[in-house]
Protein backbone atom coordinates (compact mmCIF):
# COMPACT_ATOMS: atom_id res chain seq x y z
CA UNK A 1 0.00 0.00 0.00
CA UNK A 2 1.09 3.54 -0.68
CA UNK A 3 1.13 4.73 2.92
CA UNK A 4 3.47 1.89 3.85
CA UNK A 5 5.88 2.81 1.08
CA UNK A 6 5.86 6.50 1.90
CA UNK A 7 9.20 7.65 3.13
CA UNK A 8 8.73 10.60 5.52
CA UNK A 9 11.41 12.50 3.66
CA UNK A 10 9.11 12.43 0.66
CA UNK A 11 6.17 13.98 2.46
CA UNK A 12 6.01 17.78 2.29
CA UNK A 13 3.74 19.48 4.79
CA UNK A 14 3.78 22.88 3.17
CA UNK A 15 5.78 23.15 -0.02
CA UNK A 16 6.55 26.72 -0.94
CA UNK A 17 6.59 26.95 -4.74
CA UNK A 18 5.33 29.47 -7.27
CA UNK A 19 5.43 27.29 -10.38
CA UNK A 20 5.23 23.68 -11.52
CA UNK A 21 8.96 23.80 -12.26
CA UNK A 22 9.72 24.87 -8.70
CA UNK A 23 7.58 21.98 -7.41
CA UNK A 24 9.36 19.50 -9.68
CA UNK A 25 12.75 20.78 -8.60
CA UNK A 26 12.04 20.49 -4.87
CA UNK A 27 10.16 17.20 -4.91
CA UNK A 28 12.30 15.70 -7.68
CA UNK A 29 15.46 16.58 -5.76
CA UNK A 30 14.27 14.51 -2.79
CA UNK A 31 13.52 11.60 -5.12
CA UNK A 32 17.05 11.83 -6.53
CA UNK A 33 18.74 12.30 -3.15
CA UNK A 34 16.79 9.38 -1.73
CA UNK A 35 18.16 7.15 -4.46
CA UNK A 36 14.77 6.62 -6.10
CA UNK A 37 15.44 8.46 -9.33
CA UNK A 38 18.25 9.38 -11.67
CA UNK A 39 19.78 12.83 -11.80
CA UNK A 40 17.78 13.49 -14.99
CA UNK A 41 14.46 12.91 -13.17
CA UNK A 42 13.60 16.61 -12.78
CA UNK A 43 14.07 17.23 -16.49
CA UNK A 44 11.97 14.13 -17.15
CA UNK A 45 9.16 15.54 -15.00
CA UNK A 46 9.18 18.87 -16.78
CA UNK A 47 9.23 17.28 -20.19
CA UNK A 48 6.40 14.87 -19.50
CA UNK A 49 4.22 17.48 -17.81
CA UNK A 50 4.60 19.76 -20.84
CA UNK A 51 3.53 16.99 -23.16
CA UNK A 52 0.97 15.22 -20.97
CA UNK A 53 -0.25 17.49 -18.19
CA UNK A 54 -1.40 15.86 -14.95
CA UNK A 55 -3.62 18.40 -13.19
CA UNK A 56 -6.97 17.03 -12.03
CA UNK A 57 -9.92 19.19 -11.11
CA UNK A 58 -11.71 17.29 -8.35
CA UNK A 59 -14.33 19.91 -7.63
CA UNK A 60 -13.18 22.19 -4.83
CA UNK A 61 -9.72 20.68 -4.72
CA UNK A 62 -7.06 20.39 -7.41
CA UNK A 63 -4.56 17.54 -7.41
CA UNK A 64 -1.65 16.86 -9.76
CA UNK A 65 0.03 13.49 -10.27
CA UNK A 66 3.29 14.23 -12.09
CA UNK A 67 5.61 11.42 -13.13
CA UNK A 68 8.18 10.55 -15.80
CA UNK A 69 8.86 7.83 -18.30
CA UNK A 70 10.35 4.71 -16.67
CA UNK A 71 13.92 5.38 -17.81
CA UNK A 72 14.32 8.17 -15.25
CA UNK A 73 13.39 5.95 -12.31
CA UNK A 74 15.55 3.72 -10.14
CA UNK A 75 12.90 2.48 -7.70
CA UNK A 76 9.17 2.76 -7.26
CA UNK A 77 8.39 5.66 -4.94
CA UNK A 78 5.80 8.24 -4.05
CA UNK A 79 6.15 11.77 -2.82
CA UNK A 80 3.28 13.86 -1.49
CA UNK A 81 3.23 17.60 -1.09
CA UNK A 82 0.69 20.02 0.25
CA UNK A 83 1.30 23.34 -1.42
CA UNK A 84 1.56 26.43 0.73
CA UNK A 85 -0.24 28.36 -2.00
CA UNK A 86 -2.10 26.72 -4.88
CA UNK A 87 -0.13 26.44 -8.13
CA UNK A 88 -1.68 26.41 -11.58
CA UNK A 89 -1.30 23.16 -13.55
CA UNK A 90 -2.78 22.28 -16.92
CA UNK A 91 -5.56 19.73 -16.68
CA UNK A 92 -4.92 16.22 -17.84
CA UNK A 93 -6.58 15.55 -21.15
CA UNK A 94 -6.51 19.21 -22.19
CA UNK A 95 -4.18 21.63 -23.90
CA UNK A 96 -4.61 24.78 -21.93
CA UNK A 97 -7.32 24.44 -19.27
CA UNK A 98 -5.75 25.44 -15.96
CA UNK A 99 -6.56 24.03 -12.55
CA UNK A 100 -5.41 25.38 -9.20
CA UNK A 101 -3.58 22.55 -7.48
CA UNK A 102 -3.42 22.14 -3.69
CA UNK A 103 -1.93 18.68 -3.43
CA UNK A 104 0.76 16.99 -5.51
CA UNK A 105 1.24 13.24 -5.56
CA UNK A 106 4.41 12.46 -7.46
CA UNK A 107 5.22 8.99 -8.68
CA UNK A 108 8.53 7.43 -9.51
CA UNK A 109 7.51 4.73 -11.97
CA UNK A 110 9.87 1.85 -12.61
CA UNK A 111 7.47 -0.90 -13.66
CA UNK A 112 4.58 0.00 -15.99
CA UNK A 113 2.34 -2.73 -14.60
CA UNK A 114 2.71 -1.56 -11.02
CA UNK A 115 2.20 1.95 -12.25
CA UNK A 116 -1.31 1.06 -13.35
CA UNK A 117 -2.11 -0.46 -9.96
CA UNK A 118 -0.66 2.53 -8.14
CA UNK A 119 -2.46 5.00 -10.36
CA UNK A 120 -5.78 3.21 -9.88
CA UNK A 121 -5.22 3.31 -6.13
CA UNK A 122 -4.25 6.98 -6.12
CA UNK A 123 -7.35 7.83 -8.14
CA UNK A 124 -9.57 5.96 -5.68
CA UNK A 125 -7.99 7.89 -2.83
CA UNK A 126 -8.24 11.33 -4.40
CA UNK A 127 -11.77 10.80 -5.71
CA UNK A 128 -12.82 10.67 -2.06
CA UNK A 129 -13.27 14.30 -1.07
CA UNK A 130 -13.28 13.52 2.65
CA UNK A 131 -9.88 11.88 2.46
CA UNK A 132 -8.52 14.75 0.40
CA UNK A 133 -9.78 17.24 2.97
CA UNK A 134 -8.25 15.21 5.79
CA UNK A 135 -4.89 15.22 4.05
CA UNK A 136 -5.11 18.96 3.45
CA UNK A 137 -6.12 19.73 7.05
CA UNK A 138 -3.80 17.24 8.75
CA UNK A 139 -1.50 18.58 11.44
CA UNK A 140 1.88 17.35 10.38
CA UNK A 141 3.24 14.60 8.22
CA UNK A 142 2.18 11.63 10.30
CA UNK A 143 -1.45 12.77 10.22
CA UNK A 144 -1.24 13.14 6.44
CA UNK A 145 0.05 9.59 6.15
CA UNK A 146 -2.61 8.43 8.59
CA UNK A 147 -5.40 9.85 6.42
CA UNK A 148 -3.99 7.91 3.47
CA UNK A 149 -3.69 4.76 5.54
CA UNK A 150 -7.30 4.92 6.70
CA UNK A 151 -8.55 5.29 3.14
CA UNK A 152 -6.34 2.48 1.86
CA UNK A 153 -7.51 0.16 4.63
CA UNK A 154 -11.11 1.00 3.74
CA UNK A 155 -10.43 0.17 0.07
CA UNK A 156 -8.78 -3.08 1.10
CA UNK A 157 -11.81 -4.13 3.14
CA UNK A 158 -14.11 -3.25 0.23
CA UNK A 159 -12.01 -5.35 -2.13
CA UNK A 160 -12.23 -8.37 0.20
CA UNK A 161 -16.00 -7.96 0.52
CA UNK A 162 -16.38 -7.89 -3.26
CA UNK A 163 -14.40 -11.12 -3.59
CA UNK A 164 -16.58 -12.82 -0.99
CA UNK A 165 -19.85 -11.80 -2.54
CA UNK A 166 -19.49 -11.59 -6.32
CA UNK A 167 -23.25 -11.20 -6.75
CA UNK A 168 -23.18 -7.79 -5.06
CA UNK A 169 -20.43 -6.60 -7.35
CA UNK A 170 -22.41 -7.58 -10.45
Amino acid at each position, binding site marked *: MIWEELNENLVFESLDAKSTDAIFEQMGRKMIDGGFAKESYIEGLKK*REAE*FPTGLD*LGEIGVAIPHTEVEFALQEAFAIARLKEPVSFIQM*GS*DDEPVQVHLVIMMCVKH*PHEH*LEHLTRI*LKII*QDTNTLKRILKAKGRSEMIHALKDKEMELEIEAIRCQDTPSIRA
Partner: protein
Amino acid sequence: MKKKVIVACGGAVATSTIAANKVAELAKANQIAVEICQIRISEIASNLPADLIVTTSKVKRDYGVPLITGMPFISGIGIEKTEQSILNVLKG
Protein backbone atom coordinates in the same frame (compact mmCIF):
# COMPACT_ATOMS: atom_id res chain seq x y z
CA MET B 1 -23.36 -6.56 -34.24
CA LYS B 2 -20.43 -5.77 -31.98
CA LYS B 3 -19.68 -2.10 -31.55
CA LYS B 4 -16.07 -1.11 -31.91
CA VAL B 5 -14.79 1.34 -29.32
CA ILE B 6 -11.35 2.85 -29.62
CA VAL B 7 -9.88 3.94 -26.28
CA ALA B 8 -6.77 6.04 -26.72
CA CYS B 9 -4.29 8.06 -24.74
CA GLY B 10 -1.20 9.87 -25.80
CA GLY B 11 1.68 8.63 -23.75
CA ALA B 12 1.61 5.90 -21.18
CA VAL B 13 -1.12 3.28 -21.30
CA ALA B 14 -2.26 3.77 -17.73
CA THR B 15 -5.11 6.25 -18.10
CA SER B 16 -6.50 4.61 -21.21
CA THR B 17 -6.45 1.22 -19.48
CA ILE B 18 -8.54 2.65 -16.66
CA ALA B 19 -10.95 4.21 -19.16
CA ALA B 20 -11.06 1.01 -21.26
CA ASN B 21 -11.97 -1.06 -18.19
CA LYS B 22 -14.77 1.36 -17.35
CA VAL B 23 -16.17 1.28 -20.88
CA ALA B 24 -16.05 -2.54 -20.88
CA GLU B 25 -17.87 -2.69 -17.52
CA LEU B 26 -20.47 -0.20 -18.69
CA ALA B 27 -21.16 -2.11 -21.92
CA LYS B 28 -21.43 -5.39 -20.04
CA ALA B 29 -23.83 -3.95 -17.48
CA ASN B 30 -26.02 -2.75 -20.34
CA GLN B 31 -25.69 -5.93 -22.36
CA ILE B 32 -24.03 -4.25 -25.30
CA ALA B 33 -21.44 -6.31 -27.16
CA VAL B 34 -18.30 -4.25 -27.67
CA GLU B 35 -14.87 -4.77 -29.06
CA ILE B 36 -12.44 -2.48 -27.28
CA CYS B 37 -9.35 -1.41 -29.07
CA GLN B 38 -6.85 0.26 -26.77
CA ILE B 39 -4.22 2.20 -28.65
CA ARG B 40 -2.24 5.42 -28.77
CA ILE B 41 -3.77 8.60 -30.16
CA SER B 42 -1.38 8.42 -33.11
CA GLU B 43 -2.79 5.02 -34.06
CA ILE B 44 -6.46 6.05 -34.21
CA ALA B 45 -6.58 6.75 -37.93
CA SER B 46 -5.21 3.34 -38.87
CA ASN B 47 -7.72 1.58 -36.60
CA LEU B 48 -10.83 3.11 -38.11
CA PRO B 49 -13.69 2.52 -38.77
CA ALA B 50 -15.08 2.50 -35.26
CA ASP B 51 -18.37 3.35 -33.59
CA LEU B 52 -16.90 5.46 -30.82
CA ILE B 53 -13.61 6.95 -29.68
CA VAL B 54 -12.91 7.58 -25.99
CA THR B 55 -9.73 9.46 -25.17
CA THR B 56 -7.91 10.54 -22.04
CA SER B 57 -5.76 12.97 -23.96
CA LYS B 58 -6.16 16.00 -26.16
CA VAL B 59 -7.36 15.27 -29.67
CA LYS B 60 -7.84 18.00 -32.22
CA ARG B 61 -8.56 15.95 -35.31
CA ASP B 62 -12.06 15.08 -36.41
CA TYR B 63 -12.16 11.39 -37.27
CA GLY B 64 -15.80 11.47 -38.34
CA VAL B 65 -16.63 9.26 -35.35
CA PRO B 66 -18.25 10.37 -32.07
CA LEU B 67 -15.48 11.30 -29.67
CA ILE B 68 -16.01 11.40 -25.92
CA THR B 69 -13.48 12.34 -23.29
CA GLY B 70 -12.84 9.59 -20.75
CA MET B 71 -11.35 12.05 -18.26
CA PRO B 72 -14.32 11.77 -15.86
CA PHE B 73 -13.26 8.14 -15.32
CA ILE B 74 -9.95 9.50 -14.07
CA SER B 75 -11.18 12.46 -12.01
CA GLY B 76 -14.40 10.84 -10.83
CA ILE B 77 -16.29 14.06 -11.64
CA GLY B 78 -19.16 13.70 -14.09
CA ILE B 79 -18.96 9.93 -14.56
CA GLU B 80 -22.72 9.49 -14.90
CA LYS B 81 -23.02 12.03 -17.68
CA THR B 82 -20.10 10.48 -19.55
CA GLU B 83 -21.56 7.00 -19.15
CA GLN B 84 -24.86 8.26 -20.52
CA SER B 85 -23.16 9.86 -23.55
CA ILE B 86 -21.29 6.61 -24.24
CA LEU B 87 -24.49 4.58 -23.94
CA ASN B 88 -26.31 6.97 -26.26
CA VAL B 89 -23.70 6.36 -28.95
CA LEU B 90 -23.51 2.60 -28.40
CA LYS B 91 -27.26 2.11 -28.33
CA GLY B 92 -27.86 4.38 -31.30
